């Protein structure tokens, strides 16, 4: 990377981060200043401080009521043009006085992704997901693909307490362009809540990389588009810190990280590919080399020899699937990363936290 390219990247990244955390439409909170020494009121300091607190509290109250009960200043746009599902959608129109719901879609990657990466949307509020489900169309290389949203609580983005993941019944088709369109404008997100705009996202999938980790044989076996692509010895979690069972997905890749728990921390851990929010990784564990391929002794992560971890780091991408069919820990479930694929399709289609069917 040239200096010029790096300057450009930095400017963009700083700007993206600044606008993400403090969007342009963020209301400026009330300013509370201590009473000035030169104030004409000459209140004793404690009284003045108490007054400032009262002002701040009152302003805070006004703000929070404003968000929930004030009718939308700009009423939701009219419902989209009639479609074949017009009659279903017409019953899901928002009340014109509904409060607007904010929606943001995750931007996972600019390049191709693995076939296990869900589409993730964040919502400022929602109590009924039927309109979201019915207004969403998904295509793979132009062909319609059945996919469903599943809602859960979220603390990933401030002001967006609910997230939803979109997935087909099985993994995404490999080597495809997936396009997701959400024609939400004018539809309801529940009583008194309405969407004001449409959303869309498009991404490409790469090869179907599926890694399967066997606790019985202490091996990770990788297939790429169904063909064998390597076998790697591992050490999974010790009995006190067992590796969780089920289907996980690579969330992020870091050439070097710090790991820690309540009693110890270590930096410079290499070739780390994150699998769960709870802190499971594929990683290089030179300190555990004597047990790799033989004994479960990790802190829950999948310990690999350094050369193998480096090779998997080069082979795999974000969204690739890593299955643990016989690991000894509790099963992973939605909310611990991109751990969506073990939810039975019939249950997934009900919508989770809010209903999407019926």
């Amino acid at each position: 990377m040239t200096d010029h390219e790096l300057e450009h990247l930095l400017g963009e990244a700083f700007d993206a981060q600044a606008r993400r955390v403090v969007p342009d439409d963020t209301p400026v909170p009330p300013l509370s200043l201590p009473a000035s020494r030169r104030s004409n009121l000459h209140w004793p300091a404690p009284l003045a401080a108490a007054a400032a607190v009262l002002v701040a509290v009152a302003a805070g109250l006004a703000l929070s009521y404003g968000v929930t009960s004030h009718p939308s200043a700009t009423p939701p746009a009219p419902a989209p043009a009639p479609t074949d599902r017009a009659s279903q959608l017409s019953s899901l129109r928002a009340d014109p006085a509904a409060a607007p719901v904010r929606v943001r879609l995750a931007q996972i990657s600019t390049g191709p992704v693995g076939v296990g990466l869900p589409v993730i949307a964040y919502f400022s509020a929602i109590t009924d997901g039927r309109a979201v489900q019915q207004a969403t169309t998904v295509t793979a290389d132009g062909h319609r693909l059945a996919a469903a949203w599943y809602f859960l609580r979220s603390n990933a983005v401030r002001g967006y307490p609910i997230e939803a993941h979109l997935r087909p019944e099985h993994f995404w088709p490999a080597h495809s362009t997936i396009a997701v369109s959400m024609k939400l404008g004018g539809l309801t997100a529940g009583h008194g809540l309405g969407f004001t705009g449409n959303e869309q996202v498009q991404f490409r999938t790469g090869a179907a990389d599926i890694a399967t980790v066997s606790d019985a044989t202490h091996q990770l076996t990788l297939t790429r588009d169904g063909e064998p692509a390597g076998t790697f010895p591992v050490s999974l979690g010790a009995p006190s810190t067992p590796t969780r069972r089920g289907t996980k997905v690579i969330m992020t890749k870091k050439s070097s990280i710090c790991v820690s728990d309540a009693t110890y921390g270590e930096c410079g851990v290499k070739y780390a590919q994150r699998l769960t929010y709870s802190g499971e990784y594929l990683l290089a564990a030179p300190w555990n080399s004597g047990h790799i391929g033989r004994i479960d002794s990790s802190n829950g992560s999948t310990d690999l020899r350094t050369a193998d971890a480096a090779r998997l780091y080069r082979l795999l991408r974000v969204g690739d699937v890593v299955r643990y069919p016989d690991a000894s820990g509790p099963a992973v479930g939605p909310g611990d990363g991109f751990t969506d694929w073990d939810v039975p399709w019939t249950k997934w289609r009900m919508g989770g936290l809010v209903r999407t069917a019926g």
Partner: protein
Amino acid sequence: MGTLLAMSPRDEVADGAAPPVDVPALYRAHWRELVRLAVLLVDDLASAEDVVQDAFVALHRRSAELRDPAAAIGYLRASVLNLSRSVLRRRIVARRHAHVTEPMSGPGADHDLLLREDHRAALAAVRRLPRRQREVLVLRYWSGLSEREIAQTLDISAGSVKSAASRGMAALTRMLDEEGTR
């Protein structure tokens, strides 16, 4: 762009000169930009909002001495830098006592899914830089300040700004090349 020199005590103006700066007006006009600056230095919104609130309280205490709105913005920016530094120092102390480096659970700043992958990687690398280098790069490439203005904001020499910037850029290049996402 105002300079910090304009606010030193010897420049205090006797009553009857230009009116003191209008702190609430500055707050409305610059709150968003300053919170964004603080976010780029301390990473979380709650701390950033506190930093900016405290910066305005500090400005308010001195508002009678400040007549030039441009100088006031320079003063606010320098306060945000100083207060952000204190936030980071407190955080390191708290962490040392807790014997924990990064929290293992919950989504952290480094896998924010609303950011593009290359932006996330760049921001993660910036977080690993020494404090001074990070400050200089944020002021240069986000605030768009000149070397001289950065020197005034951080109260260091122009030469120190130059060397912090070039060492920061070199370290970032190294980290991002190492990262080598495919």
